[in-house]
């Protein structure tokens, strides 16, 4: 009997809670994503999850990425570039406050950039700042950045989450209490569960439309599906189960946005390990692969085929998929010419994401059809980093390279796939020194063609970025030009 009373009480409490919830106007949102940030300092870790929560919402840089991937003014309202391309003078917005109430000025910019490029810096993208020779404070709202050589990518580099402006006094606790200048303030973090942000009423720019944003972390694809279906979360960015998307599309309660990303998914090939040091073998590999079958089989049709290491939505993209069209007969012929009429054995080392695990099975089958026996081993990320990335102990691997505009990795002969081509390296040097947009575009296009013609890696597809949200949520980014969940313009439609 007592038990019964507790139950009745429980139900009435719940009913009450539900009705209170309904009466409120919607100014808060629960956004779910798969991965939880390890900590909250975007300037000292590679984890994309940190930017997914904080970029643009809490932290801002001198420049910032827009929803279309364009580089827009951020904390710098304008800038001047000297005629030799070596000096950038940034004019900062006035009246910008950090969330702790202190003023953001040129000293903070100098501090942030100097910290990122310092000797003992633990910035995961330290290379972004490599060409910076000095950062000078001209006056409280003017900063001059001097380069050792012209760098056409500087404004782009400064838009990265790793280049955000931080308050010197906040560094000590930044990993648990991030203090930025953005439209939202950090409020609370229940580790393993969620991070709460609240609106920054003292924001210098267009104020946020929501009062509260909760980011929830749900790693299991089945749990993700259930949480969206039960409307426990209002949006799920980077939804992990593409097979469930049609079900959401058919349900009027939800909207499904399938955007593009900067993630070139490639069959990484160890260019120094025989027989992959032979370009004919790499070409044979490229023709053995049926991209569409991988996209359909591993990604349930979500993904754009690519023929080089470049994002298809970029205006400078060249469609080179024809260079590596699916042609198993040609592949066998090339293998025979290269001296492997009966194929060969190699390793295929796969990191955890499903594009790699599922795609790996399909690719192994396709390779087997032309006589290449790829032995699959499944690795955790930490093992992958150690064996494949650092140890270069692999024949083949599948990885999505999610950094934006990262074709420059092909100019690094010690990079894990070990591509060493002098003319490509010179091309990238020239690109870095070029600021004229038309000339840059021409160089980028040429670069794409070189790596495609050299069949450096197997180019598979550009990763899609699916978001499932309540049909009433407006203003979400569809594409993912950088790993960000920009909530500054998100609101509820009535």
């Amino acid at each position, binding site marked *: 009997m007592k038990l019964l009373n507790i139950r009745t*009480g*429980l139900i009435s*409490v*719940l009913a009450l*809670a539900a009705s209170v919830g309904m009466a409120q106007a919607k100014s808060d949102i629960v956004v779910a994503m798969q991965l*939880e940030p*390890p*900590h909250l300092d975007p300037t000292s*870790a*590679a*984890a994309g999850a940190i930017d997914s929560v904080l970029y643009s919402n809490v932290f801002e840089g001198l420049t910032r990425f827009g929803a279309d991937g364009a580089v827009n003014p951020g904390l710098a309202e304008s800038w001047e570039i000297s005629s030799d391309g070596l000096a950038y003078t940034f004019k900062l917005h006035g009246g910008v406050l950090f969330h702790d109430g202190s003023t953001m000025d040129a000293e903070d910019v100098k501090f942030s950039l100097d910290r990122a490029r310092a*000797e*003992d*810096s*633990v*910035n*995961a*993208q*330290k*290379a972004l700042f490599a060409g910076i020779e000095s950062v000078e404070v001209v006056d409280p709202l003017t900063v001059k950045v001097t380069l050792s050589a012209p760098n056409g990518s500087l404004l782009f580099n400064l838009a990265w989450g790793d280049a955000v402006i931080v308050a010197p006094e906040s560094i000590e606790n930044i*990993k*648990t209490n991030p203090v930025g200048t953005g439209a939202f303030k950090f409020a609370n973090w*229940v*580790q*393993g*569960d*969620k991070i709460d942000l609240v609106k920054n009423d003292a924001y210098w720019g267009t104020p946020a439309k929501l009062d509260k944003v909760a980011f*929830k*972390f*749900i*790693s*299991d694809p*089945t*749990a993700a599906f*259930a*949480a969206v*279906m*039960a409307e*426990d979360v209002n949006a799920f960015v980077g939804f992990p189960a593409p097979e469930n998307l049609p079900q959401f599309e058919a349900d009027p309660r939800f909207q499904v946005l399938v955007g593009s990303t900067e993630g070139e998914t490639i069959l990484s090939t160890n260019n120094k390990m025989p027989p992959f040091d032979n370009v004919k073998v790499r070409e044979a590999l490229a023709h053995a692969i049926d991209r569409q079958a991988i996209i359909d089989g591993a990604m349930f049709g979500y993904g754009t085929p690519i023929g080089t290491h470049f994002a298809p939505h970029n205006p400078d993209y060249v469609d080179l998929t024809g260079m590596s069209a699916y042609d198993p007969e040609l592949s066998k012929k090339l293998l025979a010419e290269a001296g492997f009429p009966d194929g060969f054995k190699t390793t295929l080392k796969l990191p*955890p994401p499903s594009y790699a695990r599922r795609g790996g099975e399909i690719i192994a089958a396709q390779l087997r059809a032309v006589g290449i026996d790829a032995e699959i081993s499944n690795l*955790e*990320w*930490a*093992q992958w*980093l*150690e*064996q494949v*990335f*650092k140890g270069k102990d692999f024949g083949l691997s599948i990885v999505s390279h999610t*950094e934006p505009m990262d074709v420059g990795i092909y100019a690094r002969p010690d990079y*894990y796939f070990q591509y060493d081509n002098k003319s490509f390296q010179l091309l990238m040097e020239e690109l870095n020194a070029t600021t004229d947009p038309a000339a840059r575009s021409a160089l980028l296009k040429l670069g794409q063609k070189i790596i495609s013609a050299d069949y450096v890696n197997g180019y598979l597809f550009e990763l899609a970025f699916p978001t499932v949200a309540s049909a009433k949520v407006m203003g979400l980014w569809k594409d993912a030009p950088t790993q960000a969940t920009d909530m500054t313009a998100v609101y509820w439609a009535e």
Partner: protein
Amino acid sequence: MLRYFLKRLLSLALSLVVASIVIFLALEVVPGDPAAYMLGINAQEDTLAALREQLGLNGSLIERYAGWAGGMLHGDFGISYTYRTPVAEMIGERLWISLPLALFALCLSTVIAFPAGIWAASKRGSVVDVVVMGVTQLGVAIPNFWFAMLMVLVFAINLRWFSAGGFVGWDAGFLLAMKSLTLPAVALALPQASILARVMRSSLLDTLSEDFIRTARAKGLSKRQALWRHALRNALIPVLTIIGLQFSFLLAGAIIIENVFFLPGLGRLVFQSISARDLIVVESVVMLLVFAVIVVNFAVDMAYAIVDPRLRGRR
């Protein structure tokens, strides 16, 4: 009794020391560098070195073991590599979910299993017995994560009685917090209750066929009186053993259920930490679980002694 107690206590302490060494060594040989994991694929060599220095990964094996084990003796579990917060604090937070969840599931399991097992044993061969045996057979066979997903489908997605997962936090009030633990607790309890009910039944049946029960019946006790006064207490020893094992399992083994319901419990912490090579967290949580298992076993040993006076005198 005192001798029995001291002997058990000594074996408890020894087990802990051995466990800490095994755990530490086993995890130290796991390949993978936490610094490389954190800084990702664009990190430069000097940046990695700087981070390794910051994390204190450069000391010798013995130095690091001594630091870790020594710290634990006074409750200091060290600082997490990735989160950069004290491990003890993190574990404490997660325990506030895992411990109540385990207790909740254990209560459910016991509340279901005792009556079912006793009832089935007292009416051996009847319809009740057949039903209990059938249902518990099913309960043992069904994987708990599958049952969990089924419950989510029915109670969260279709009926909307519960949320699909997550934990509202104890701040939201006891009832709401318990509500968010209900589905996971039921999912965890079902197989445990089934096992426990079967053990209860068979143990009771064994006892009921013993001579002293016949004697009790001959003295004029009814079947029911004999069962409640004499058989039950004697049948409890194997049941207690199972309960002890189950509690440790529920505390440590809820990883999958925590994932299905995205609960920020201990299991999820271990899971995340292993992939991030946050070894100090993994080591400490595993150590804590070992500690819990050993202490529960110790408590069960003590409970035997209370239930069965013969054990107290035994050497």
